[in-house]
């Protein structure tokens, strides 16, 4: 079986499958998949419940190379059970992260230090609605294991999160996504905790109308997150541009990469809470009002304008740390 790397570079990231994204993001023909379809490791829980199973359990994990870096790639498939995290795919995700950490520690033990141009990298391409409800506790356990590993990766291995596929990063995966050092998104990227339908169900249609797609995109979409500082790079929708952005980041020293972290210290928590405070004080009813506060004009046109124009006029939330 062969996947043509050159064809993938120009392909839409939004439309690509998890495997195509994983193969396309690392250097040509360097991707080696762990527990691929041939290993047939399917979810035992879905089988009992009579739900469809998949040989890779909806995730592609493996290792590849970018320049001299070993790159550990985790790529979620949103079309299979909403990309939700279960026992098998959760373990694949958490233990690939652990492998990145182990690689770092082995390199440090053997060579004394890990040079900037050779350090391991961990990339997660999110496309998930959170924990798989069919196997709730097993999925949550794996979620917490990956969160623990992310904490250990801090200041050692750059952890790059990507959102730009059909589902986005919701539920438990919203946390995992925003714990990253760098978050990259295209215009289709979405990050949130509770999805639109659930918010409407819980607090009513007047508060949040889940059928109003424009409202959803300007609240949870990548452009709003870019203004608020949750997304660091807003880029075009091809696998190649995602790869180029990653290639430009990886050689930077760890201290510079981790500058864009959103969580991880009391100061950062305080800075994030200021946004909440601001929204409460100014009685923000729509994310456009918040964009205005950060100095954006033309807020009505901003969600629809072409990406280049948006990037040329946008004013983002200033960061102190």
């Amino acid at each position, binding site marked *: *079986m*062969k996947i043509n790397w050159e064809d993938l570079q120009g392909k839409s990231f939004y439309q690509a*499958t*998890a495997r195509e994204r994983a193969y396309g993001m690392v250097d040509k023909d360097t991707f080696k998949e762990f527990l*691929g*379809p*041939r290993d*047939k490791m*399917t979810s035992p829980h879905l*089988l009992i419940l*009579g*739900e*469809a*199973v*998949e*040989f890779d359990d*909806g995730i592609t994990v493996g290792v590849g190379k970018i320049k001299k870096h070993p790159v550990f790639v985790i790529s979620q*498939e949103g*079309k*299979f059970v909403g990309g939700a995290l279960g026992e098998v795919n959760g373990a694949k995700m958490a233990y690939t992260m652990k492998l990145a950490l182990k690689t770092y520690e082995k390199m440090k033990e053997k060579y004394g230090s890990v040079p900037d141009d050779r350090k391991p990298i961990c990339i997660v391409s999110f496309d998930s609605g959170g924990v798989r409800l069919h196997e709730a506790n097993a999925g949550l356990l794996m979620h917490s294991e990956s969160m623990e590993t992310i904490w250990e990766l801090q200041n050692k291995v750059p952890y790059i999160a990507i959102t730009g596929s059909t589902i986005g990063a919701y539920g438990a995966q919203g946390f995992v996504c925003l714990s990253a050092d760098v978050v990259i998104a295209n215009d289709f990227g979405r990050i949130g905790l509770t999805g639109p339908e659930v918010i409407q169900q819980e607090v009513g249609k007047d508060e949040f109308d889940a059928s109003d797609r424009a409202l959803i995109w300007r609240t949870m979409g990548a452009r709003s997150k870019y203004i608020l500082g949750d997304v660091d790079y807003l880029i075009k929708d091809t696998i190649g541009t995602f790869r180029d952005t990653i290639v430009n980041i990886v050689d930077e020293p760890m201290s510079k990469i981790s500058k864009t972290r959103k969580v991880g210290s009391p100061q950062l928590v305080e800075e994030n809470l200021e946004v909440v405070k601001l929204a409460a004080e100014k009685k923000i009813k729509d994310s456009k009002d918040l964009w205005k506060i950060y100095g954006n004009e033309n807020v009505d046109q901003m969600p629809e304008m072409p990406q280049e124009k948006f990037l040329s006029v946008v004013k983002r939330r200033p960061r102190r740390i």
Partner: protein
Amino acid sequence: MALTELNYEFKPETPKTIKDEWSHIGVVASGDLEVLIEKENALKGKIKIHILTTVVGFDDVWETVVKKFIDKTGLSGVKVSINDNAATPAVVIRRLQQAVDNGGGLQ
């Protein structure tokens, strides 16, 4: 409600096999399926098919669709594993063809 498990074995008249060692295509999305083809030396001239599907009561349709594809292409010497989530016959044929193409085609 358990998944339906179907096993078939065929012997096409003009046996051909895929070029590569294995081939995989598709995502088990709603109305879609994944196909995994693996070469097996013990199956010379024969083909084994294993299907796991959420649909109940369409065993005859599955047999017809799969047999038609194998008679047409002569695919053999392989084990085919299918995970299905309510795909229509047209989608099944398309994915089988894609899986063969992805494995370097028939020879």
